[in-house]
């Protein structure tokens, strides 16, 4: 018999909403919160598009409320990161790096997505020394200094605007000649006197690794191939996210970019495994859509558990098994 009816991995809006609904359905969910507990909203400031808060709510406060609400109805929250999963056998099993393990009949994957880095290597070497993916964490260190923000979406504009509180000047570097960000965010950014734009360009290099700090960047114009040195003190990267699916690779179907493929609501290729939030959504990626899909996954999991053992097409879990032998997946 499984330790749990349902386990939820991830503690952003998708995971916590799945927890709330499964808890209220008396399934006593275990939520494994993961390293970046609370998800991407923990790194934001004011959230102005979460319905019900006319004046907005701080991202971390919203997540704290969601968590307390989920716990109030009986969600158990466990700290830590799952190191290995085995979806090839029932019940599903989950192992932690410290040797603990736990099993469940159903699983909701809500592991979200993490910030992408540039692909020039040097950005990671200077992480914590002038290159950052978190404006709210690190903006403070750039008071009165010129910095760059890379990206053209809503997150990039939010970071650029936020960083003008500290920086003397914010230069947005974007690969295209127009922004992908929503109209309201574009207007805010264009109206801000501290924000400048370098269009059709990418960062070719960041100086200066040997000194262990950022002293400037080399910008490449993608149309003319011309290289320009720009002296500055910090680089904030906001070029999107990568889904956190390494744990499940080979056991459920993913698309080419690594997102979990869902069908008929939140179902994955593996019966009993449901996915919600940014881990399966590269289109909408909003807190509210993540929460909505978390609710769907909870309801789907509940229906699945009511009907056990009837996975929709198969009974032998063959659909879960796209890859490696179980011995490699779960070492006790």
């Amino acid at each position, binding site marked *: 018999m499984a330790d749990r009816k349902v386990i939820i991995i991830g503690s952003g809006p998708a995971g916590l909403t799945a927890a709330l609904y499964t808890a209220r359905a008396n399934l006593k969910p275990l939520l494994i919160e993961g*390293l*970046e*507990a*609370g998800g991407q909203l*923990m*790194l934001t400031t004011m959230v102005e598009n979460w319905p019900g808060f006319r004046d907005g709510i701080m991202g*971390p406060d919203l997540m704290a409320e969601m968590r307390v609400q989920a716990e109030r109805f009986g969600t158990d929250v466990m*700290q*830590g*990161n799952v190191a290995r999963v085995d979806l090839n056998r029932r019940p599903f099993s989950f192992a932690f*790096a*410290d040797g603990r393990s736990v099993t469940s009949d159903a699983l909701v994957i809500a592991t979200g997505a993490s910030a992408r880095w540039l692909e020039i290597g040097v950005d990671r070497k200077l*992480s*914590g*020394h*002038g290159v*950052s993916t*978190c404006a*709210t*964490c*690190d903006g*403070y*260190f*750039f008071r009165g200094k010129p910095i760059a923000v890379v990206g053209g979406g809503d997150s990039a504009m939010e970071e650029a605007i936020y960083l003008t509180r500290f920086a003397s000047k914010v230069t947005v570097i974007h690969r295209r000649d127009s922004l992908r960000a929503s109209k309201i965010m574009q207007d805010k950014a264009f109206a801000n006197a501290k924000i400048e734009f370098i269009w059709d360009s990418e960062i070719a290099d960041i100086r200066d690794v040997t000194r*262990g*700090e*950022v002293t400037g960047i080399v910008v490449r114009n993608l149309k003319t191939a011309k290289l320009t040195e720009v002296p500055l003190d*910090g680089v904030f990267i906001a070029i999107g996210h990568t889904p956190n699916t390494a744990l499940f690779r080979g056991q459920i179907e993913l698309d080419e970019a690594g997102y979990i493929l869902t069908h008929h609501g939140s179902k994955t290729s593996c019966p009993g495994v449901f996915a919600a939030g940014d881990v399966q959504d590269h289109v909408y990626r909003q807190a509210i859509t993540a929460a909505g899909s978390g609710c769907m996954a909870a309801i789907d999991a509940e229906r699945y558990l009511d009907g056990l053992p009837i996975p929709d097409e198969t009974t032998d879990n063959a659909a879960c098994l796209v890859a490696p032998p179980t011995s490699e997946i779960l070492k006790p």
Partner: protein
Amino acid sequence: MASEKVKTFTDGNFDTEIKSGVTMVDFWAEWCGPCRLLAPTVDAIATEYDGRVSVAKLNIDENPNVPGRFMIRGIPTLLIFKNGELADQIVGLAPKEEITKKLDQHL
């Protein structure tokens, strides 16, 4: 409720405190969300490595000098010192196993 095993370093006592043995310093601030997420891990390590590693926190708002000296531009950052010399660093949120693996290399 930080563990009582975790010391508090300041610009004033930093150099004296890191002089001997292995020391791990957590650079943090109140307003830093990921710092709050890392805190329980730092507490757990302080208890687990009690007597072998001196574990401390340094508030970067109240103590600007030490973070400046080590060119810290992002938090949380963990610096590991051995007999006063910088031996290792971990930038950003890291799982406990990754931190203890680095610590073990210096013990």
